[in-house]
């Protein structure tokens, strides 16, 4: 598939040259009673990025999004959206969001809901045009209560587009949609993002993050465990494991092999997790007396679970941490 990646110019010296970050979080914590939902997140998202928050339920995706949207206040830390407080950015129509459920009145029609929302902003796009773009102009006069789940989600998307926001936040927008609905929904989002909008979406579908984001932030237990391009995170998550019998393995030497992410020695067996398994295998077979060599591919899904579960044995380095 062809992916067009639109970014605003961010050349050298561009940082701090006046264009504020779309989202900046500094040491953000959020506690609910004794439960720590978000445990110190630092995050910069520049204008024009398409970013996925990936993580299982309870990873802190939604709590973080609520903080960015000004729906809840962080227990500690700072949030700014386009250099201002979230509430100010929302009042100026700079940020909008598509929520997973709710947020619609059953007794209004599709067009009335859009008119209602549009009238609240100082600056908004024509309702007819937005309905067309969301693919629901044909059902403009239908009561919201009579619309299918997919149609309601498209209406939420239309409502989010009305203010022509610079930042669009989608919180698990395709939950409960069938494959076809999901594909066409993302098609509409992609088309829209091509015009330069910053998009942040939360998902627990790895494929969705992989296909639609150009940066993936992996969350676990309220912390960022990985942050990088789709391929960087995939390499971390989806590398192969090279297993060989190698008595008296020299761990330090193995660690120096290019592409070896993590090394595990179990008696005479070594396990090397690597994004470049060929290089590791070549090294083992040519430079060491290793035998019985096996290369195992770990499924994306398994890798994702390993990265986001409690007892992963992968070195939790952040490929994009230098960003």
């Amino acid at each position, binding site marked *: 598939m062809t992916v067009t990646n639109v970014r605003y110019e961010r050349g050298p010296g561009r940082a701090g040259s006046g*264009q504020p970050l779309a989202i900046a979080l500094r040491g953000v914590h959020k506690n609910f009673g004794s439960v720590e939902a978000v445990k110190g997140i630092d995050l910069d998202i520049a*204008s024009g990025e398409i970013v996925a928050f990936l993580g299982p339920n309870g990873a802190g995706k*939604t709590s973080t999004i609520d903080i960015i949207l000004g729906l809840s206040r962080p227990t500690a830390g700072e949030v700014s959206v386009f*250099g201002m407080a979230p509430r100010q950015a*929302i009042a*100026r129509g700079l940020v909008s969001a598509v929520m997973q*459920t*709710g947020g619609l009145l059953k007794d209004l029609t599709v067009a009335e809901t859009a008119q209602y929302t549009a009238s609240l902003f100082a*600056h908004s796009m024509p309702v007819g045009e937005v309905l067309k773009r969301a693919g629901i102009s044909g059902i403009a006069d239908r009561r919201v209560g009579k619309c299918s789940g997919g149609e309601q989600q498209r209406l939420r998307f239309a409502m989010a587009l009305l203010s022509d926001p*610079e930042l669009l936040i989608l919180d698990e927008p395709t939950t409960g949609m069938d494959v076809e609905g999901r594909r066409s929904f993302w098609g509409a989002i992609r088309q829209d993002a091509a015009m330069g909008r910053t998009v942040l979406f939360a998902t627990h579908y790895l494929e969705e993050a992989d296909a639609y984001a150009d940066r993936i932030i992996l969350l676990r237990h309220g912390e960022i465990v990985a942050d990088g391009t789709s391929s960087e995170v995939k390499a971390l998550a989806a590398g192969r494991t090279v297993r060989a019998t190698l008595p008296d393995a020299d761990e330090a030497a193995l660690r120096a092999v290019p592409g070896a992410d993590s090394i595990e020695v179990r008696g005479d067996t070594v396990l090397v997790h690597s994004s470049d398994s060929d290089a590791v295998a070549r090294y083992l077979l040519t430079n060491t007396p290793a035998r019985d060599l096996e290369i195992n591919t770990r499924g994306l899904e398994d890798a994702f679970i390993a990265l986001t579960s409690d007892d992963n044995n992968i070195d939790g380095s952040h490929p994009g941490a230098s960003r």
Partner: protein
Amino acid sequence: MSTQSLPAPDLTTRRAPGLGGFNVTVLGLEIRRMLRNRRTLLFTMVLPVVFFLIFGLNSQYANQRAGHGNVSAFIMISMALYGGILATTSGGAMVSIERAAGWSRQLRLTPLAPVAYIAIKMLTALVLGLGSVVAVYVVGMLTGKPSMPGYLWLVTGLCVWVGSLVFAAFGLFMGYLLPTENVMQILSFALVLFSFGGGLFIPLSQFPHVLQTIAEFTPLYGLNQLVHAPLLGVGVHVAWAANAIVWLAIFAGGATWRFRKDTARV
């Protein structure tokens, strides 16, 4: 993957709407929604009319004077007030349905200021209140029993209608505070209590002294005195107006506070 460059967004052209987002489009749509709810509309018009027909048509009342009119007119005003507050309370309490649908959370993602929204909802509830007041007055006129000078029909009707704003705020506050399933049961009961406390159903002079003192602080007391003042031709006490205004401020403030807090996902 191809990368293309776009100019950075110009944030300086963006501003927040005036009046906290208050506008006539939303008011119009809210009123249309309200009028689609035929059941509530009918209920809040029929109930006070029935009460008036039961309590206000005693033939003695038509001959008994009350200020510039007769007792039947006095009771008609009371029942219109009861209808008005029943209607505006119901209208306001409909926010509990919105709350359950996550609509207030959705609105928090727009520039709409809580105060502006509460104002829109109060004005919308007033439309329902108008139907109720007009219904009682029209039926009163048709029975021919209530009697008062023509201008007093207009003045008292207007006082009742505008006064019912206090209970639009009450309905909103309670709609945000109470669970959706039984909000109207609780409110109907509360309105009956307030009506007794305000002297709407039985004159307060028939209450024991202690109860009378307590009653003077209940939310309907001031309003009930105020709407009858033009008919009785008595001067307006500051305490009556203060009672109504303080309760209005409490209810509207409470509703705004709850709306602001209502960001839970559904």
